[in-house]
């Protein structure tokens, strides 16, 4: 009987350590991805973010990882893969603060594909995103740091929206 208890205890401890080990590995993937992005090693960051998408159930990590994957493909010029990841991101995380950035990236990709109907639809979604009231200010600015370490900035004027990546104007939408 004590022998059986010992076997049971060993089994429970085994599975417990396995689980903890896995959770630890997931946390490690996310941290490794962040570290790689911070050090500018985008390929490693992609590898670890892909692991997060496979293994990590945390929705915040998954959201960040999905955006990072889309962003990586966008920067690498792999627009078809970026389009797929961005579409998934926009569908799964409609309230994300990165949504406007994702839409601007999608707009640039759709223009690259000469897909007029998608461009129109995305432009409309961007213009519908935010309503602004400028009493004393000239414009409203929003800045985002991306998972891969890029600086995004959106400036909402009364009649246009400007989109910057790392301080460089990438796109302008005029109402």
């Amino acid at each position, binding site marked *: 009987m004590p022998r059986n208890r010992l076997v049971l205890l060993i089994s429970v401890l085994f599975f417990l350590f396995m689980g903890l080990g896995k959770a630890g590995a997931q946390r490690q993937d996310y941290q490794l991805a962040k570290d790689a992005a911070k050090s500018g090693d985008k390929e490693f960051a992609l590898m670890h973010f892909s692991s997060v998408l496979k293994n990590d159930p945390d929705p915040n990590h998954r959201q960040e990882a999905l955006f990072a994957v889309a962003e990586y493909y966008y920067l690498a010029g792999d627009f078809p893969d970026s389009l797929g990841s961005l579409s998934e991101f926009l569908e799964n995380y409609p309230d994300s603060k990165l949504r406007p950035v994702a839409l601007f990236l999608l707009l640039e990709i759709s223009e690259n594909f000469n897909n007029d109907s998608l461009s129109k639809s995305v432009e*409309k979604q961007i213009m*519908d995103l935010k*309503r602004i*009231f*400028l*009493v004393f200010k000239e414009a409203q600015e929003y800045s985002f740091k991306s998972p891969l370490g890029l600086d995004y900035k959106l400036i*909402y004027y*009364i*009649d246009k929206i400007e989109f910057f990546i790392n301080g460089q104007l990438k796109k302008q939408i005029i*109402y």
Partner: protein
Amino acid sequence: MASLKNKLFIKIKGLFFICFAIVLILIISVNIILAYNKEALIKKLDDNLFRLVNAENIFYLPPNLIIIKNFTVGYGDKKILRLPLSTAFFSLPEFISKRNIRIFSIYSDRVALDPSTLPDFLKDDFNNILGFLLKIPRQDFKLNLRQITAGASENKSSRTKGNFYLRIFKDRVSIAGKTGDSSLVLNGKINQNYFIAENLEYKNQNIDCQLKGILKSNLAQFQGFIILSDPVSKRTNQSNIFILDIDSSIKFNFPKVEVERLNFSINNNPVRLTANISISPFSCDLKIVSDFRGMENSKKSELKNIEFSAELSSAAENTLSADGRLNIDVLEHNKDSLPIERLELTLKNLLINFNEFPILKITAQTINLFSRTNTNTYNIDLTSLTAKLDGLNQPLRRFKFTSSFCGGLIFGKGSLKMLDFIPVVQAVAGMKDVDSNRLDGILVHFSKTYGKLSSQMYLYSYPEPVFQGRMNIKNGYLNNFEFLKWLADLFGIPSLKKIDFNTASASFKADKEGVGMHDMDLDSKDVKIKGFFKLKEGDFVASKIFFSFRKALLQKSTKFKPLLKLLDKNQDLVKFNFQLSGKLSGMNFKWLESDFKEDLEKGIPNFAKRGLEEKLGKAIESILE
């Protein structure tokens, strides 16, 4: 020998003379008999048609020829058919053996037709005529009519002449006709109770029609196609109208005609038509339904459900009365189209007078035009409309109209022509002393604008539709305009809720780029408003509005007084300029630069600005909702 020859010659001459005399007597006798029995002979045509048919004289010429002079069909002076001289051949063997005059060929020249009498003719005698035609013994027969003229025109030389040929051989019927560039061919089979049209072709430079079907005494069923080409521009197939897949079932019980089914496609747009028609007096209940994409036969055109129903009837002489309704539901939109989802046109007591044709005189008790876009509804009511349409027989038609409209008048004139089957309209119109608040059916903001409105408007439908003009409102007032109401409440100046003005004016324009008002100008004692407002494709707004308030007015406000202290003392007007943009349903707002704003900014510390920005933002959001 010579005297013998002479005697023989005299005997032959005598015999010949006797024979000639007998034949002459016979001919004269036959002709006298024919003259006396003319009416009985005609009656033999058909008892029911006897009263319609007449002939001045009938002569016989040997061996088998009958000459008929002035043969007519019709009532009194209203003759639908006149045959001045006709020759008919009858079968001599059949006459000798059976004493039966069987005519197997008729030839007639200078035939005159008057189609204007056709409605009366069909009304009273269609069944008799059809019955007569179906009762004609099926025997070989030829009818050859030459130099046919149609119409009752005074200028006979200007009429087009045509020929008509009919041949019946056993149960086969062949018809061929030609007039000017028009030709008609009909081949079919006749039976005791019906006629089968195996091939009916009618062609001229503008029409190519091919039908087949069956005609019974009370039913016609036809299938086929018609291709219409534009007489003005015959450049390509694009300008053709293709009426294909015709499938019809029409019941006759004259004077009633019931179109049970008339289905066809017009340039690939399916159309279903039903009608109940009375020929005389004329009336028609008509219903047309179509899933219409456009005459250009292009998939890019938007799909519309069109439903037209009308009750038409003849009112006074040469006047058509109509009550009708046209509904158009636009199911799809393309980027160049106006964003209309539904259009309804209702006509009540419309009278069209043809007395001065080609001039039409039109009156209507009421015309209502309702339209719905994805954001608004629009309603226009015209009452006591009178209009004149001139030049129906010419490519360019001109029109004039005047109507009561919202307590005032609307009037105008213009021209209409068809270009590749698309109507091209140019019109200039005006409004006078219209109650501006009653124009809220066109633009909801008018509900808060009072005064007598006058306007000049221009409409062009080609090459792009454009509607533009300028309007003036005199001696009116703005009542509870949202922005002014908000200012009145915010600063405690109740007089801002109602602003009297002497004149307010604005230009407007609607085209495929959008609709908008520009050069807006309102001048009142205490408030001045200028600016523009444009609604572009996708309901995007572009607008700048400039308000100027007299300082004396704002000084009445205890809340505003402290702010006025920040201003330059010499300023008489306090300017409040703002810009709107973005979606109509969620417009962005910007307070534009002005002296007032500048002075205010100088006088307010930065931390207070942030609070004020937030507060004003929320307040403005509530106004723009």
